[in-house]
């Protein structure tokens, strides 16, 4: 797809109405193209004005205090991690002082050569092989996926570490005996599921979370495991299910279903 073709997608992307494949391609392009990103931002500002078409409505008066109370009990963004937090996560290597000068010099030289070779390789690949552009686009998508996964994991940690959070263990059934999961949920019903050793899903299928309410299954969100069998999903426990501590995971069509149709892979004790 050429530059101009991407531009024609901006307005529809701002409405989040593109087909998933086109949206992924455009997202990858936007990661690389600051000019397009700037144009996209302008479209999003225009689309944001459609909120004024909705009409005005006043939430109940107690909501403000509920939000501030929840905020009071959870870490704010400046404390919750982010780009600057990475620096504090670095574990320093012990310094070998007796060889520090020569080792550092060789390391610096090697790093310069390695970096130079890397840059040259990139330039050669970029100029000679258009296909490498597509690879970079895919890598960009993977990086974004990884960043989103990291953000989800941070949110999961926030839920798990919120005072008053409860957790429920889910064990694998006969179709996935090695699988295991934990659901943690706070007082507001915000829940996170962390699963391990899940079998890969067939094409067109995804795992679906279920809340057990009075013996009935209420559908939750869908998720896909990674190649290592790890999966996670955040969901809001429905108000009617907040007294319940029952959860289950089934394999369903990727669009989700209102009632379970596939086998149960994980479930909590009754």
């Amino acid at each position, binding site marked *: 797809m050429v530059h101009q073709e991407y531009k024609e997608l901006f307005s529809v992307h701002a*409405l*989040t109405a593109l087909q998933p494949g086109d949206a992924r391609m455009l997202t990858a392009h936007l990661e690389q193209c600051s000019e397009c990103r700037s144009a996209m931002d302008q479209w999003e*500002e225009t689309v944001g004005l459609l909120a*004024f*078409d909705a009409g*005005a409505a006043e939430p109940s008066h107690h909501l403000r205090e*509920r939000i501030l109370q929840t905020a009071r009990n959870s870490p704010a*963004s*400046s404390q919750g991690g982010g780009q600057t937090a990475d620096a504090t996560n670095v574990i320093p290597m012990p310094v070998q002082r007796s060889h520090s000068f020569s080792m550092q010099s060789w390391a610096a030289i090697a790093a310069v050569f390695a970096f130079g070779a890397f840059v040259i390789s990139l330039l050669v690949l970029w100029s000679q092989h258009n296909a490498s552009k597509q690879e970079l686009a895919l890598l960009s998508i993977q990086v974004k996926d990884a960043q989103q996964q990291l953000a989800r994991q941070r949110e999961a940690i926030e839920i798990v570490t919120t005072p008053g959070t409860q957790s429920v263990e889910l064990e694998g059934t006969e179709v996935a005996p090695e699988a295991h999961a934990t659901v943690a949920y706070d007082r507001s019903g915000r829940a996170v599921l962390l699963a391990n050793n899940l079998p890969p899903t067939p094409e067109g299928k995804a795992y679906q979370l279920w809340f057990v309410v009075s013996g009935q299954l209420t559908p939750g969100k869908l998720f896909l495991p990674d190649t290592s069998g790890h999966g996670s999903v955040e969901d809001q426990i429905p108000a009617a299910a907040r007294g319940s501590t029952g959860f289950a995971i089934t394999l369903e069509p990727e669009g989700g279903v209102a009632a379970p149709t596939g086998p149960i892979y994980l479930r909590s004790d009754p």
Partner: protein
Amino acid sequence: MRAEPAQTSDNELLKAIARSDETALGSLYDRYRVILFGLLVRILNSREEAEDVLQEVFIQVWRRAAHFDESRGRAFTWLVTVARSRAIDRLRVLAARGRLADAARRDEWESVSDADTDAFYAERSEIVRRALQEIPEEQRLTLRLAYFEGLTQSEIATKLGTPLGTVKTRMRAGMLKLRELLGHQVRNLI
């Protein structure tokens, strides 16, 4: 709409929120609760669900304010984007649970207004609605189905029984017209 004069800019409020300033969070809530809640009620057609999502939005703001990049756009746009995204997610969950209120699928749009609004809101609402009225009805419908129901172009084509190519053409033409009518006013409107 705005319960208090906007003496502090939105960006300054977000910076204060990033420093864990609860008062700033309250001020931002006071400033935008009515328009955001109106948007959420319109998408979800349920005050209860809309309040749940509005709470999620402001908790997300509390947690992510430090990541807001003012060079990428206005705080208002960010808030609306977060609110709409969360509401569409909730709409899909409700649809999967078979609990979607019929009215959320209406084709004719009515105002959900039940709040006293000030000149700030009334003026902007009037400008946006007047612009939408200038867009041909079939184009306007595709924009509203995408924006308020979170439908993709192919889902809109299925819903309306219209060829996908026609939906794409209408949507793009509608968006270009919308920008032509509102684009130069964006900076003054928000």
